[in-house]
């Protein structure tokens, strides 16, 4: 694909669908790098700063970042139809694939050596998530905000160890943590 020298014209819903379809299918264990390449480098629908700012917005809202990003990009260019086209493009094929995999697991998960393979997959997936947590925690700890460590520890203990319902934890810790951040960045 040749990249134009200037920002591309606003895409139609159909183009949004196609572009996000490719992103959804190319990302294994994290779609974000592929989304950035498509949006910034290949299609030039967003500038670099635009992309970072949109990502920051998507990270402050609930829901998977990349799904929020499909909504933001789709709606900015082509309204509600654009948002829907980008969303369906992004998740349609992966959801179909994972349902097929889930059905195969239900049917053949106990056959032969497959249980061993699934045990291995589960152990590796746990390691991948652990690495993600460490990467996410590093910049927070480096910045030394007073509220970060107790909030992290309480969220972990409340949800992971005590198995309290998530809404309780968010209602208890969310306002405190946001207020602390508010005071830190006046």
């Amino acid at each position, binding site marked *: 694909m040749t990249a134009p020298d200037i920002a591309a014209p606003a895409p139609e819903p159909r183009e949004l669908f196609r572009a996000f379809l490719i992103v959804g299918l190319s990302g294994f264990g994290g779609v974000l790098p592929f989304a950035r390449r498509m949006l910034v480098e290949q299609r030039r629908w967003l500038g670099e700063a635009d992309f970072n700012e949109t990502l920051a917005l998507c990270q402050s809202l609930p829901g998977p970042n990349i799904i929020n990003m499909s909504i933001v990009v789709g709606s900015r260019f082509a309204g509600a139809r654009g948002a829907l086209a980008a969303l369906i493009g992004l998740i349609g094929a992966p959801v179909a694939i994972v349902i097929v995999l889930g059905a195969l697991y239900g049917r053949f998960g106990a056959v032969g050596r497959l249980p061993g393979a699934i045990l291995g997959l589960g152990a590796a*997936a746990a390691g991948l998530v652990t690495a993600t947590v460490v990467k996410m925690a590093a910049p927070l700890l480096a910045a030394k905000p007073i509220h970060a460590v107790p*909030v992290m520890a309480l969220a972990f203990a409340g949800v992971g160890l005590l198995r309290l319902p998530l809404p309780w934890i968010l209602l208890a810790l969310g306002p405190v943590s946001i207020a602390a951040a508010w005071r830190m960045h006046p």
Partner: protein
Amino acid sequence: MKPFTGALGTLFARFAVLSLLAFGGANAVVPEMHRQAVEVSHWMTDADFAALFAIAQAAPGPNFMIATLVGFKAAGLAGALVATAAMCAPSCLLTYWIIKVWDRHREAHWRVAIAAGLAPLTVGLVGATAYLLIRAADRDLRLAGVTAVAGGVAYFTRLNPLWCLAAAAGLGLAGAFA
């Protein structure tokens, strides 16, 4: 109301709530999904949950699809579609609505404070996800070793995570965890 319809209604209601609580992405609500699917509703065992999470990770696409598989396990194809829709629709509608307000307040202080305040919460919640997955997956030292190696490779290298998953599945197929 037929029991099946009841299960779909329950799935929709629970995942719609999770959708709006998923600050920092789907991995932040995995502990709550686990609590509801395994401990509250008994749709599956701890081991099933770990296996489904691994399958969702190994499949291409965004990482919310553990929800699709929990729905599938609870109520078949309809359950998968209902859980997927419920996991996406509320947060997408919120995003669609908020983007307009947000674009008008680019440098607002409250934006920075909300993002900075939610960040440590998200890390704690994803930490809980890691803990629950380790607890479910690492039944012996060999599997714990796989977790440690996969974590180390993911942390210290830029290797595509799929290689770790493929290698671990390959070891299992070869009978390493039998």
